[in-house]
């Protein structure tokens, strides 16, 4: 780097210098990333706050995220998110290779690596959508109590079973109230598969089934109640919960689902906008815009953003799936 007053950045008084020896665009991208990092840490810290507040009843991530594509019914905790982490780190690698090729003014290689980065990002967003689908759909179903706690069901071995595994529905005339059948401005959410009375009756008929509460024991596992306590706990149930949304969550505390949607959603939105920026830069690379401009700094700037998205995911992975 040439040691002139302009490039070292100590003399900015004439208005054309570069403070810190970095271009205006890159510096502003760094400061944007800093502020965005503070936003993400606010999200993750508030997740930590809520988790510390309900430390004894927080859902166990290994029991929630157990799916892997094409492996139905196989209990595969964490492997899928680990794979997603690899995909994102790898797309970071192709991005940094594109930046490197840009320094060498190698248009062909920049094009190739930008393309691979976009593909990697798209695969990641798709994976996240699949993860959301599984989370929203739910697997076992549970009962929500009066105070908003979740009761799950286990068999004699202590493994969780689905509500539909032991409950038989009785005949019911109750239909979902929708806007087109009554008052147009009134409607209700989809009715749960089973009513509370069905669940209580079937539970009495299946002596091997027991109830599992949100409470974690000393070993960090969910507490399983005995038969008498299970029956008593079910009396406080108000309705069946299937899957997760912003209000209720069959895996445990509703805040877990809320934070999952907000944090991974906000991150997914960043990945999505990163892909859009990448596509814009990719088109400009193909058109030769940066070739004519004489430098590929735009690739560097969009690369900074892309790496930041990867950086955030590393933290989301830790705090949502590992810790």
């Amino acid at each position, binding site marked *: 780097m040439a040691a002139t007053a302009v490039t070292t950045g100590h003399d900015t008084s004439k208005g054309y210098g570069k403070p810190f020896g970095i271009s205006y665009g890159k510096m502003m991208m760094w400061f944007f990333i800093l502020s965005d990092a503070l936003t993400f840490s606010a999200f993750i810290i508030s997740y930590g706050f809520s988790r*510390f507040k309900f430390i004894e009843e927080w859902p166990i991530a290994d029991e929630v995220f157990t799916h892997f594509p094409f492996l139905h019914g196989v209990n595969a905790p964490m492997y899928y998110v680990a794979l997603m982490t690899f995909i994102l*780190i790898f797309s970071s690698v192709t991005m940094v290779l594109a930046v490197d090729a840009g320094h060498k003014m190698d248009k062909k290689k920049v094009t190739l690596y930008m393309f691979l980065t976009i593909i990697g990002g798209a695969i990641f967003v798709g994976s996240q959508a699949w993860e959301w689908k599984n989370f929203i759909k739910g697997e076992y179903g549970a009962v929500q109590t009066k105070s908003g706690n979740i009761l799950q069901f286990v068999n004699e071995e202590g493994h969780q079973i689905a509500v539909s595994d032991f409950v038989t529905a009785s005949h019911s005339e109750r239909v979902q109230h929708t806007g087109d059948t009554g008052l147009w401005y009134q409607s209700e959410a989809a009715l749960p598969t089973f009513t509370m009375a069905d669940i209580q009756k079937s539970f009495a008929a299946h002596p091997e089934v027991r109830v599992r509460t949100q409470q974690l024991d000393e070993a960090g596992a969910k507490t399983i109640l005995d038969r008498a306590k299970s029956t008593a706990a079910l009396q406080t149930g108000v309705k069946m919960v299937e899957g997760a949304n912003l209000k209720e969550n069959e895996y445990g505390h509703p805040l877990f689902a809320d934070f999952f949607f907000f944090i991974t959603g906000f991150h997914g939105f960043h990945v999505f906008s990163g892909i859009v920026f990448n596509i814009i830069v990719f088109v400009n690379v193909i058109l030769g815009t940066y070739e004519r401009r004489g430098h590929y700094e735009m690739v560097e700037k969009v690369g900074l953003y892309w790496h930041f998205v990867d950086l955030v995911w590393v933290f989301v992975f830790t705090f949502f799936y590992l810790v």
Partner: protein
Amino acid sequence: MAHEIQPFFLGMLKPKNNIQKIWMVFALLSLVTIIEVIFGIIKPSVMVDNSLFGLKLLNWFFIILTIYKAYYITWAFMHMDGEHKWMRRSVVWTGVFFIAYIAFIFLLEGGYIYEIMKNSFITRDF
């Protein structure tokens, strides 16, 4: 604009060119992720049963490895190692100190509310 290639991994790895460095960092990040996943699946009882400052040793392990990964992404992939010292500090120090401060305050407060709900008159389970 070509930056000098900085050695990394405590100066032990001295890549000859940028491309080589990128792949070395990728290998390192992958290795750390694999270690994290292995520990997350095994959950060694020594690390689960013992805790430091109210956090399990396993969780400390994960958090430290995460910061380790974040360091390499920022320094190697985002080329923070090539920026001017005060450019680097204006971004990194602001982030690190502010986040550490807020995290400390909020986690302490979360633990306090947990105590209140457990031992005081307020309950959410009725």
